[in-house]
């Protein structure tokens, strides 16, 4: 049987298996074959456990034979290399975790397995999710399948490259400052960052704990709804997950329409220095929503210009604390100097284990937390974060959804920002505010540049407003098709 999975969605695969057109084993074989044949240039995947994936598929087929029929049953999912999957490596694309084999499942992994999905293959990322291009992986460069000389975005670049490159049906990524939405936009996928507290972070290697959130990178909005439904919900292992009911997100999409939807367009997101073609494409998409019956109004998020400064203080401070656990003692890479002291073990393991961008961010984070600077930097950033959160709270009093570009440019050429970190950081300007405010956001493809590069429209919704956000996104998707 020759199954083409390149355009196949979760929904279509689930229908195919329910109709007995193919089994999960056949589907998984098709995914493994696609990886072998098509991932040679893009290089989205770091490792693939073929045997484990096929065993999982067999189990899913058995469960179906026993009467189960859920949407995720038998669906292979490409996992960002940040999720613990028992028995598989979990390197976070860092040398310091080389050789580590996860002794447990992350909660999202467990939930996927319970739904019958198969964690199939681990995809590339920026080291410890620090980056927006996937060029900061310690192991390999991943290319954008739409244009091979360009970055796929990041940090979940492997996820987007696999989905867009036809080597995955769906993928799970993480988003700390745009790491799901930006690669989804660059590669022409749909990427959803759920509200903070919607999905458990247990077993997901921490970058910045108050900002990190897990979410899907997929081929359409319906798949985002399906996958979110499978991973969301309370977890006794993560006290930051709110104990709220998980609605049937897929069913909630029925009858989605733009009619009467109040769309806020923040003037601070349409600024000089952005690619005019990207801006025009986003403007045009918003006009299409207006023509379809939405009420479009200009709004203001006045503290937007401070978001990058706040983000790079908060995120690096949290990262410097979180990454202190990588010390060469209990797992991963260890190097001992001739001195053979504990101190030299720490220093040498971390010196050779961490890559450049990770060190740069740990230095900044350590500095802003260090004695004498804590109040001047970290505490000020936390207060400014409150202003950014308040901006959104006020904005959502007068609109249902906010529409903005995802990034100031389309996918850029490889090697164009690696030597200019500040330039790379400023590229996150439209995505980091949602993480700082804890709200939800989604990237939906809305057009292409003259060079045929995908452009993403970002929709933002209030905290725990995923149903309305997904409905708006589904209506947009229909309108833009």
């Amino acid at each position: 049987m020759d199954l083409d999975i390149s355009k196949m969605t979760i929904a279509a695969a689930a229908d195919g298996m329910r109709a007995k057109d193919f089994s999960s084993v056949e589907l998984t074989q098709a995914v493994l074959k696609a990886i072998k044949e098509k991932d040679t240039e893009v290089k989205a995947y770091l490792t693939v456990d073929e045997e484990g994936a096929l065993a999982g598929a067999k189990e899913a087929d058995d469960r179906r034979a026993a009467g189960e029929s859920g949407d995720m049953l038998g669906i292979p999912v490409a996992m960002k290399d940040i999720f613990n999957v028992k028995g598989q490596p979990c390197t976070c694309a860092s040398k310091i975790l080389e050789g580590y084999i996860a002794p447990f499942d992350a909660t999202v992994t467990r939930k996927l397995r319970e739904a019958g999905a198969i964690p199939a293959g681990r995809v590339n990322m920026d080291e410890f999710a620090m980056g927006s291009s996937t060029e900061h992986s310690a192991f390999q460069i991943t290319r954008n399948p739409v244009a091979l000389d360009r970055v796929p975005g990041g940090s979940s670049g492997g996820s987007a490259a696999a989905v867009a490159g036809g080597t995955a049906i769906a993928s799970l990524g993480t988003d700390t400052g745009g790491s799901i939405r930006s690669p989804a936009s660059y590669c022409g996928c749909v990427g959803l960052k759920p509200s903070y507290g919607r999905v458990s972070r247990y077993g997901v290697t921490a970058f910045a704990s108050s900002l990190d959130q897990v979410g899907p990178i997929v081929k359409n909005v319906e798949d985002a709804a399906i996958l979110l439904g499978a991973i969301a919900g309370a977890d006794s292992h993560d006290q930051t997950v709110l104990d709220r009911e998980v609605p049937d997100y897929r069913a909630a999409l029925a009858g989605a329409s733009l009619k009467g939807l109040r769309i806020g367009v923040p003037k601070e997101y349409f600024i000089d220095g952005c690619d005019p073609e990207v801006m025009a494409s986003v403007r045009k998409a918003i006009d299409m929503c207006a023509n379809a019956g939405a009420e479009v109004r200009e709004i203001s998020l006045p503290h937007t210009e401070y978001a990058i400064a706040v983000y790079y203080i908060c995120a690096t401070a949290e990262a410097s604390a979180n990454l202190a656990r990588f010390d060469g003692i209990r797992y991963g890479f260890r190097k001992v100097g001739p001195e053979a002291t504990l101190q030299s073990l720490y220093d040498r393991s971390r010196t050779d284990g961490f890559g450049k961008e990770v060190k740069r961010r740990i230095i900044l984070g350590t500095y802003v937390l260090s004695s004498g600077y804590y109040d001047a930097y970290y505490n000020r950033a936390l207060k400014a974060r409150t202003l950014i959160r308040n901006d959104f709270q006020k904005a959502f009093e007068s609109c249902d959804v906010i529409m903005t570009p995802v990034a100031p440019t389309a996918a850029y050429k490889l090697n164009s920002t690696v030597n200019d970190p500040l330039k790379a950081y400023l590229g996150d300007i439209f995505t980091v505010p949602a993480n700082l405010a804890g709200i939800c956001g989604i990237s939906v493809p809305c057009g292409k540049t003259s060079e045929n590069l995908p452009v993403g429209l970002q929709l933002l919704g209030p905290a725990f407003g995923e149903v309305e956000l997904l409905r708006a996104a589904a209506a947009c998707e229909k309108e833009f098709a």
Partner: protein
Amino acid sequence: MEEKKTHIDVARVCELAHFDICAEEMTEFQAQLDNILAYVNKLDELNLDGIEPTMYGQPVVNSFREDVVTPSLPREDVLRNAPDSANDEIKVPKIVE
């Protein structure tokens, strides 16, 4: 409020963070980090008097659960990841003379 600087003592911070960087990186990082620092000093423009800090993604207060004992990870699974181990324990360089 403490005095702000426009210069990070990178060598000192690396000591605090427990890693080294090479001479070439030192020069490169110094310029980049000072540049980033100058940028984040933008926050000085804001009047933040009386504003409460936001430390978490959502306001969560006292999330309790039952204190139930559950199994820990199997010892062999954990030790499999240790770079060096002996007698069911992780080995480290001598720390007490």
